[in-house]
């Protein structure tokens, strides 16, 4: 830890920020069905998920090691490249959160790494076949597998459980949902918190302050676990609303079938060596459960927007990361500029999100008007246009915010809000 350079510190802070966005982006995976069916109170649900994520982070360092050892060629990676990758991933995560669409944080991170690597080492740095087998195919397979399983399971639970009603049944479905949601949370903690640990370890190795092939240090494990737990606890209420209410209307039976299917698919896939994204599995399971009830409907407009977002995740994150890497290479001031841009645009996204607040108080009482099935969001083109806006050079509004933030980087504008204080703290670190 002696040679802990400034750029390394920036990378670590950015990686933790990504972990944080990952946490609140993916709370929905574990808890959306539980919250929308009323099995758990929103706050209780996210607290439970946060604790299990934290526990999961400590269970093993297997995933972290596959990232930091061997997946990427350690010799060619500079901390700046990792930083650029994280910038792309964070911005995409925040943007999809703003429009309330579930999308894979892992794909965002992968896209970021690919974009930064291409900008740094040329197009040859990407293996096309790996892209297809590791990204494209799983993204198509996950929702189908989880969806079919959830559909059959909810059909069956409805036909078998016809005679079951009353208190015992309600209690039973509640317990079942909580158990399977807990499993998903735990699996998420072991997977996603460790991705960040792997990234930080990779950066430390690349920056020369850690010997190659070492396990993540304890402070890395601890801070990554805490960051993802904090993010999970704050809850991506917008995404929870889409997943729990926007895609379809879930009854306890369906919630149970969906969450069980998702947990099974996630565990089976990672165990059998064909990793499927948690987000994709859960979304597919929710839709399958929606189709599995007589008279159940899936709001395909919302689903289509979600699919579009999935398709855009990788290229969008890659493009932002490539731009970031390109600017970073202009010199230290370039890196500083990218860091400021990240802070400013995160702040801007947060500001926009405050126009229509979604939190634990109103996450379930959305008007289930099928036309406005996309909760509180504008026209279907929203995803694409916002994505375009994100990848194009900073719009005027953001630049204004940027200057405002530059003028007073540590201004105590919003310590009351965790995200703003996060932004403020990272601004303080970068300046």
């Amino acid at each position, binding site marked *: 830890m002696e040679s802990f350079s400034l750029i390394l510190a920036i990378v670590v802070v950015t990686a933790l920020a990504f972990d944080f966005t990952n946490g609140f982006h993916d709370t929905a995976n574990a808890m959306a069905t539980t919250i929308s069916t009323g099995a758990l109170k929103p706050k209780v649900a996210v607290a439970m998920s946060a604790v299990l994520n934290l526990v999961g982070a400590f269970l093993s360092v297997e995933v972290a090691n596959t990232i930091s050892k061997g997946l990427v060629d350690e010799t060619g990676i500079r901390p700046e490249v990792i930083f650029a990758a994280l910038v792309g991933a964070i911005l995409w995560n925040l943007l999809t959160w703003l429009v309330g669409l579930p999308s894979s944080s892992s794909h965002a991170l992968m896209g970021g790494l690919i974009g930064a690597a291409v900008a740094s080492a040329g197009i040859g740095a990407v293996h096309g076949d790996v892209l297809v087998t590791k990204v494209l195919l799983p993204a198509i397979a996950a929702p189908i597998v989880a969806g*079919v399983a959830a559909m059959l399971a909810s059909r069956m639970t409805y036909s078998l459980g016809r005679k*079951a009603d009353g208190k015992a049944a309600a209690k039973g479905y509640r317990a079942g949902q909580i158990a399977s949601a807990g*499993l998903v949370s735990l699996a998420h903690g072991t997977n996603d918190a460790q991705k960040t640990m792997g990234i930080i370890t990779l950066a430390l190795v690349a920056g020369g302050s850690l010997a190659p092939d070492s396990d993540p240090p304890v402070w890395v494990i601890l801070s990554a676990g805490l960051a993802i737990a904090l993010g999970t606890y704050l809850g991506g209420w917008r995404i929870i609303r889409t997943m729990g209410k926007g895609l379809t209307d879930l009854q306890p039976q369906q919630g149970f079938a969906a969450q069980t299917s998702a947990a099974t698919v996630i565990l089976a896939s990672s165990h059998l060596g064909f990793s499927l994204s948690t987000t994709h599995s859960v979304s597919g399971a929710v839709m399958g459960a929606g189709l599995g009830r007589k008279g159940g409907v899936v709001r395909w407009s919302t689903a289509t927007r979600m699919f579009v977002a999935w398709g855009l995740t990788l290229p969008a994150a890659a493009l932002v990361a490539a731009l970031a890497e390109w600017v970073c290479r202009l010199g230290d001031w370039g890196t500083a500029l990218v860091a400021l841009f990240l802070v400013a645009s995160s702040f801007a996204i947060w500001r926009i999100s405050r126009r229509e607040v979604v939190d634990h108080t109103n996450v379930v009482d959305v008007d289930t008007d099928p036309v406005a099935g996309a909760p509180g969001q504008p026209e279907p083109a929203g995803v694409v246009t916002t994505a375009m806006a994100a990848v194009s050079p900073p719009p005027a509004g953001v630049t204004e915010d940027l200057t405002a933030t530059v003028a007073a980087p540590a201004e105590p504008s919003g310590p009351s809000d965790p995200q703003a204080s996060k932004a403020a703290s990272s601004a303080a670190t970068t300046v």
Partner: protein
Amino acid sequence: MSIDWAALGSVFGVSLVVTVALVGLFTLGIVGLSRQEQAAARGGSAALAVTGAYACFAACAAAVAYGIYLIVA
């Protein structure tokens, strides 16, 4: 490019069978418990249904334990 169809196929098969089996078992357990509830309301009891229900729940708990084992291992 080699796509591991075998792995994908087994993920599909295992997920399908396990999900349906688990949800089915759990539903049977719930049916058993609610039968007991109805019997109790009439003043009787349904010992067989309750025993069956707990057997179902135990099987589900075992599956969850195996899931946790897979996460930890």
